[in-house]
């Protein structure tokens, strides 16, 4: 009896082991793939960083904000990979080391300018070490503040929303806001003369000139990388199509000639191509065309149903755009040659920073729209809380 029960137990044990082995083989197969995903995202983890020393509150909050925008996690000292040793008496002094303090990446003090500007410079130096990219914290952004559904005004501020200045006071509607050559001007479509027309707004002189005011739609201007040409959308000869002219509006050339509507042209950084959205296949998709005219080529955006508002990254590698679902807008990135889309965050109207890493876009919640910055590799998003109005169409100086 005892023997039989031992045998039973042994058989049961063997069975259990076999089943368990089989089970774990299956389980291992699934988790191995999860691990691959996890490994891929490991390289794009936020940088764990800790700030030591006696920075005054303004400098400290600037530094924290910038580092978070740049893809850092501000953590406790024992969890940090990097340490910032910073202090400010009159000027800010900053040092970046590894966790032990034995490896020092730089040690610098900052002179002149405001405390904010010095803190931005320190943050820029830290991110330069971590990402290899030049600082974006000395950049400006332009955007619209909405005063009602059909009225807005242009503002320019530091990238974090500080030092905002109102640019227009038309009581009209602005669309397609973008920077002009050398960030010395703005280009946009305004309804101030009761029709959507394209203007060049010289910021130093505050003067405006018309680039396009044909009958019909004149919108979505985009300056070429060399600053000499403007791509735009006009409907003067048919349905909304892509055109290119000189900066003063002369030498106008029609680039696309479809029966569908095109929208939002953006230049490749070498100036050879334009990317835009078209409804030629029924729903909005991305296409490229040689900037001097030629055949349209579709950019595949695998994984999403529609694609609008493309913005070509300054390094030429990727295109940010917005996909529209029935209920929301999502910011996406796709390789410039097309392929699998990465859906990043809820929002619309994306604009690349010069580092080809940070995006600024707007996000609606209810009737209010806020500006959000996103570090694409780490997917860390940060609201620009200092822009308090309902803001849209943000664009980064390049």
């Amino acid at each position, binding site marked *: 009896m005892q023997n039989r029960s031992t045998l039973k137990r042994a058989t049961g044990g063997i069975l259990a082991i076999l089943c368990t082995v089989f089970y774990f083989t299956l389980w291992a197969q699934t988790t191995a793939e999860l691990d691959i995903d996890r490994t891929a995202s490991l390289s794009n983890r936020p940088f764990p960083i800790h700030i030591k020393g006696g920075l005054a509150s303004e400098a400290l909050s600037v530094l924290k904000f910038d580092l978070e925008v740049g893809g850092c996690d501000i953590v406790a000292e024992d969890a940090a990979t990097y340490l910032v040793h910073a202090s400010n008496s009159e000027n800010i002094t900053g040092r970046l080391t590894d966790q032990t303090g034995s490896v020092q990446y730089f040690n610098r003090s900052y002179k002149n300018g405001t405390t904010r500007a010095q803190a931005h410079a320190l943050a820029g130096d830290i991110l330069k070490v971590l990402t290899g990219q030049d600082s974006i914290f000395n950049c400006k952004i332009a955007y619209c503040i909405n005063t009602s559904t059909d009225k807005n005004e242009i503002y320019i501020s530091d990238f974090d929303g500080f030092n905002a200045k109102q640019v227009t006071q038309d009581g009209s509607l602005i669309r*397609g806001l973008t920077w002009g050559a050398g960030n010395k001007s703005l280009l946009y479509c305004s309804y101030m003369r009761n029709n959507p027309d394209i203007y060049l707004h010289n910021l130093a002189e505050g003067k405006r000139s018309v680039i396009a005011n044909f009958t019909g739609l004149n919108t979505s201007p985009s300056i070429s990388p060399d600053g000499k040409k403007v791509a735009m959308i006009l409907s003067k000869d048919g349905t909304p199509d892509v055109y290119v002219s000189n900066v003063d509006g002369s030498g106008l050339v029609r680039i696309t000639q479809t029966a569908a509507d095109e929208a939002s042209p953006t230049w490749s950084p070498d100036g050879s191509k334009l990317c835009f959205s078209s409804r030629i296949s029924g729903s909005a998709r991305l296409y490229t065309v040689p900037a001097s005219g030629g055949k349209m080529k579709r950019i595949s955006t695998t994984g999403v149903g529609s694609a609008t508002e493309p913005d070509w990254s300054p390094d030429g590698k990727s295109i940010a755009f917005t996909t529209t679902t029935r209920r929301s807008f999502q910011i996406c990135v796709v390789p410039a040659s097309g392929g699998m889309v990465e859906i990043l965050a809820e929002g619309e109207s994306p604009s690349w920073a010069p580092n080809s890493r940070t995006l600024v876009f707007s996000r609606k919640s209810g009737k209010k729209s806020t500006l959000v910055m996103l570090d694409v590799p780490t997917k860390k998003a940060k609201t620009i809380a200092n822009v308090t109005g309902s803001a849209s169409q943000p664009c980064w100086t390049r």
Partner: protein
Amino acid sequence: MKSITKLVLILGLSLAVSLLTSCKNPKTPTSSIPKLDPKISQAGTTGPLTGSRNQGTGPAGDRSGSYGNNNVSPQGVDSVDEVGFDESGIGQASRESFEGRPMDTEIFKDYTVHFDFDSSAVRPSDRSNITAVADYLKAHGDCYLLIDGHCDERGTEEYNQALGERRALSAREAITKDGIQAGRVRTRSWGEAKPAAIGADESSYAQNRRGEFILLLPKAE
């Protein structure tokens, strides 16, 4: 014996469950990959436009339907209505001929046309509104027309600007088919900036996807 059966049962069940779950979650992610539209291969060249310019020829064909029939379909349908759009006579006249004319925004209020979601095709049920506007313009040869195109808020801003223009142009094309010279009709898109209804529901959206007719009276001497 009982304990073995139990053990085998439990293990077998857990195995079955694990197999089932692994079946439910196939290893490849299931993102739907949109098919490439076969039409795209032939479209998109920048060759000359097909279709001849035949501005304002003949009376319109379709006069069916009743006046004021603004039935709005409860759910939008994505349709490929652009392919085959006739661009004849679409080139816009100069701005000067339109500017300085007093506007009458009320006269055609009941003749607003509506569009399906993401579509710029004029609905057959709206043809009667178009014809009524065309008839008025025929009777008042010194008047011009402005068509405002509008969208619901579910498209992005610049996309909606283009779509709104496309809608206004479709209405304009329909009016020219009713015998009105294209040179008398001007289009303007507002995108989603001027909604007719404020709500974030399908019935509001349906009211917002529209083309409005504004009468441009003769310039005051």
